[in-house]
């Protein structure tokens, strides 16, 4: 799976982006976006901001507060977006692009001989192996993404506490330590 993680300021300026691949199930941590996908990704992330604004205010609990983790909020083609919103309305967006096999786009994974017969056969093959399909609302997936966000949030708060860093000015996070921490969280959980 390939991931794109972006931090957006309250005024929708990207402050930080990090692209990585999964380290789970012997993944090598290298993203596998095609050139076209890579060009499209920023647009997908920005378009999902509309959804963030819709869901961020509710449904709140009786105490009048809502969790920062908004879970899976949007899907565009095969890209799944999860969001975490900080107290100061900075958005963390994680775009997940599962491998084609995890989406059931190819039927080669299950060893079906008729993989190249055509789209219909391929579709059936995929249906048969539905257990291995990527599901963004799977509790295990949600928990992994949440743990990733929790770690990033802690580092983010430390960044924000820097008196010379102003989110409102669109200050980009340049610290290599920050990048290393995000990469470590990605490696650990995703």
């Amino acid at each position, binding site marked *: 799976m390939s991931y794109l993680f972006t931090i957006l300021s*309250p005024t929708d300026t990207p402050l930080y982006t990090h692209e990585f691949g999964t380290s789970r199930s012997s993944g090598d941590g290298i993203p596998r976006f095609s050139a076209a996908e890579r060009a499209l990704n920023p647009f997908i992330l920005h378009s999902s901001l509309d959804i963030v604004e819709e869901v*961020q*205010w*509710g*449904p*709140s*609990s009786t*105490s*009048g*507060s*809502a*969790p*920062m*983790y908004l879970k899976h909020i949007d899907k565009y083609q095969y890209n799944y977006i999860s969001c975490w*919103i*900080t*107290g*100061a*309305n900075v958005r963390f967006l994680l775009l997940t692009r599962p491998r084609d096999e995890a989406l059931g786009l190819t039927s080669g994974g299950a060893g079906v001989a008729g993989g190249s017969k055509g789209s219909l056969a391929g579709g059936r093959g995929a249906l048969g192996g539905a257990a291995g399909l990527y599901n963004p609302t799977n509790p295990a997936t949600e928990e992994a993404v*949440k743990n990733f966000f*929790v770690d990033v*949030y*802690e*580092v*983010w*708060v*430390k*960044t*924000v*506490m*820097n*008196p010379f860093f*102003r*989110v*409102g000015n669109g200050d980009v996070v340049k*610290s*290599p*330590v*920050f990048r*290393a*921490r995000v990469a470590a969280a990605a490696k650990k959980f995703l």
Partner: protein
Amino acid sequence: MSASGAGAGAGPPPSGGTGGLRYPSNKKTIYDRNLNRSKNAELSRAAFAYLFVEMISYAQRRVRGIADLEKRLNTQGYPLGLRLLDLLLHRSPTSTSSPSPQRPTRILPLLQFIAQTLWRHLFSRPADALERSEADAGQYMLFDNEPLVNQYISLPREMSQLNCAAFVAGIIEGVCDGAGFATEGVSAHSVGLEEAGAAGTEGEKKVKPMWPDRTVFLIKFKPEVLEREEILGRSGG
């Protein structure tokens, strides 16, 4: 560690790999600090008073009037509010029912966060009162009987309108703004003498006010915030 570091020399070798990044002498970046360490983090009152006086005199340079001076103090406090919002939300205890950190989405929890959590963090005690204005539904009043920032400040007669708690008002504005509750401004006003004066007209001529430094922070939210609040209230959220 990549060997690409062009800046050979200049202090200890950077452990992050990238040249140009300079580490503090104890090799601890801000990312190595613990966010929850709040014990012994209190600043002495004298040190604060000294710094605050310097801040006021800095703000007072080439200032056009009292309103302008208060505006500058407000601006100094604003970024603090933005930062404290996230820091205190991060520190707030998470219960088992809501394991991920929470953020306020309604006006009342936000104001309680300010009056309780923020005040405790800044002044080690909660604010003294929180009221909603009767005349204006979008206006809230937060009272502090003796603001710490004004403790060592005595105003000259010609500046009696000034309240240096405008700095704290700026912090409040930063918290509200950051949380997505835009305000038309937060201002600090001294009310201690007025209240005593109102009480004193009936009986004795001069009543010594119980809280001469009593300050009210007027928080006025923008109409769109109130509109959202109403919609959220209707949906029963």
